[in-house]
């Protein structure tokens, strides 16, 4: 632990003066440590979100970095993403119970936990944001990228299960730190694996510990619905959310988190049901809505989005939101999937590929159709400006079901809290990898994690978002390098699994019930 903290300090010392030089002129009045930090953040942001011209459209290189493996792996695995629905469903239903011992975390539970970490504003507000900037057509690209993202999710979650550490007491440590280290070592690249694992962990520990963004977005939706926004309320909200989180992660009272975990799927079902209700009452308009999406995908200028930069511009906007929405490539969801009890890593990967399908393809399509059918993408707020973000989604549902915005606010609060709890777990694993899982180390982590949430209501400062967002995406760099290197192994494993499945070597729960003696 000492070694690591001195490494961190050295890293900071080495990088900060460099940022400071460029920043002094820009923000001379403030100076000091805060000025340095601000400059460092801006420099980092400028680096991560630097754009490169692609066919005349400026695209952030990081978006390309994340979208490219989604497409490449989809082809490399022979469109496994589209061929695995039936198998994933059978695994989830518990057909292959031979590797799911009673009382252990099932593959269904691992998926639902991972989903509670990704379903949220990224999906519900993300599609509205895409439409606001790129027109209705951006949705098509978002859905397409969501489908491709399934392959990347499959790759990382299979690795997450294959190269996890199982401790003597049965508890599990998994995630990119472990599969980069163990997986690349198994491929004869131990040193590279260690370096990538540490690079990932060092970035992730800074990126995942501050969950300010979630709390902040929940605050803005709540204050929007009840119409109160002042310092006292913001502070109260901060203390409430930090307090609830502290009860769970410091107090060990997990029942609050458990209740949330059960409510999130319920909320998702309510959301989808509301969307379906609106769609069915406007059944005749669905073909026209799809026509609008497809037309808009190639001609965003038809919908007043000439600034989007044509079809390619709409594609980039959709792609960006889809990358946010699926979180494929960040590697975080693998930490949850690693906890599933299964002997078949590939089967967990197949379960995991349902995640982008549910959180991006299904939820986004529904949301987009509701927004287009209700015409909410042309709604303006009280200030005469077109709505964007969560307000557009809220207005779309509200125009058909007047009380729905309140439900939505409640859902957003729950989604935010469950995301904070899930990410609290993810970041505790990363922290444990970096600083050790000792009692003192973990207590320091828990206190920092909760205290950071307190001022979340105040941060409208873009600087904070910029820091969190840019670090967040940086996690994808070591993770995706590792996935590329292990892709051949993944393809072999998948072929092997499918062959055994076809040959009937993977026994179903029914076969075992019929002749239990032959189970092993």
């Amino acid at each position, binding site marked *: 632990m000492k070694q690591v903290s001195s490494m961190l300090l050295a890293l900071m010392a080495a990088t900060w003066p460099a940022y400071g030089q460029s920043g002094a002129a820009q923000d001379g009045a403030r100076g000091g440590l805060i000025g340095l930090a601000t400059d460092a953040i801006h420099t980092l942001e400028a680096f991560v979100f630097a754009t490169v011209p692609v066919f005349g459209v400026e695209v952030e290189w990081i978006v390309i970095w994340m979208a490219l493996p989604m497409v490449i792996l989809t082809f490399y695995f022979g469109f496994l993403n589209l061929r695995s629905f039936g198998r994933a469903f059978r695994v989830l239903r518990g057909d292959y119970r031979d590797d799911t011992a009673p009382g252990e975390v099932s593959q269904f*539970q691992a998926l639902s936990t991972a989903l509670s970490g990704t379903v949220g504003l990224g999906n519900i507000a993300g599609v509205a944001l895409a439409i606001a900037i790129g027109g209705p057509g951006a949705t098509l690209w978002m859905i397409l990228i969501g489908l491709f993202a399934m392959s990347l999710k499959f790759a990382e979650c299979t690795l997450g299960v294959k190269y996890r550490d199982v401790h003597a007491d049965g*508890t*599990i440590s998994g995630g990119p730190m472990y599969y980069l280290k163990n997986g690349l070592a198994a491929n004869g690249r131990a040193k590279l694996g260690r370096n990538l694992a540490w690079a990932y962990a060092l970035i992730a520990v800074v990126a995942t510990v501050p969950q300010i963004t979630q709390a902040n977005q929940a605050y803005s939706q709540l204050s929007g619905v009840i119409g109160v926004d002042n310092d006292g309320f913001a502070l109260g909200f901060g203390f409430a959310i930090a307090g609830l989180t502290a009860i769970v992660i410091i107090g060990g009272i997990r029942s609050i*988190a*458990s209740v949330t975990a*059960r409510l999130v799927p319920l909320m998702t079902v309510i959301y989808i049901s509301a969307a379906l209700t609106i769609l069915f009452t406007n059944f005749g308009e669905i073909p026209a809505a799809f026509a609008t999406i497809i037309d808009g995908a190639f001609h965003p200028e038809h919908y007043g989005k000439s600034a989007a930069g044509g079809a390619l511009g709409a594609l980039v906007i959709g792609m960006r939101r889809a990358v946010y929405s699926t979180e494929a490539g960040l590697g975080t969801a693998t930490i949850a999937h690693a906890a599933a009890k299964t002997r078949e890593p590939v089967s967990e990967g197949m379960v995991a590929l349902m995640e982008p399908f549910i959180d991006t393809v299904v939820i986004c399509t529904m949301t987009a159709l509701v927004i287009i059918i209700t015409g909410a993408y042309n709604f303006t707020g009280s200030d005469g400006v077109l709505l964007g973000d969560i307000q557009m989604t809220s207005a779309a549902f509200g125009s058909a079901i007047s009380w729905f915005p309140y439900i939505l606010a409640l859902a957003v609060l729950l989604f935010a809290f469950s995301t904070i709890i*899930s990410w609290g*777990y993810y970041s505790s694993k990363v922290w444990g990898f970096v600083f050790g899982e000792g009692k003192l180390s973990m207590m320091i982590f828990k206190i920092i994690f909760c205290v950071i949430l307190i001022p979340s209501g105040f941060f409208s400062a873009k600087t904070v978002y910029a820091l969190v967002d840019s670090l967040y995406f940086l996690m994808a760099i070591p993770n995706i390098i590792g996935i590329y290197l292990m892709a051949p192994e993944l393809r072999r494993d998948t072929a092997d699994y499918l062959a055994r499945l076809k040959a009937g070597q993977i026994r179903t729960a029914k076969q075992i019930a019929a002749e239990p003696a032959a189970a092993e």
Partner: protein
Amino acid sequence: MSKSQTYLVALDGSEWSERAAQWAVNLAKSTGAKVHFFSVIPWSGFAPMSAPDLAYRPLEKAEEERHAREDILDAMVEKYKDTGVEFSTGYTWGNPVDEVRKEVKAQKIHMVFAGRRGRSKVLDMLMGSVSNSLAHSVGVPIVLVP
């Protein structure tokens, strides 16, 4: 009656289930049947879990296992060890009704003993009753001990 009969007692650590054990043992003493103490730890692989639940599950499972084995099953065997009745024990996770039904088939059980919680009919209707469902689905004679 033949000596090869086996009674299953569904145990969950409650006083009702312990009374059921008492009845089973008393009857077994006179019939010479064996008694199988069986405990089901309620569990569903379809109940969503939070991330911390996921992390603690292996530890919790170990604790549930210890509790079922030591506090419930072994305690019962210990209590009746001087009765001369032959005992066996078993435990698993899942839906109590389903698991008892499976165990009845697997162990070729002749008769089931279960405690019946003294709840009102209204509560039974609302919350469902394990003993009622058992009585309707277990497929062998069942004694519900109030």
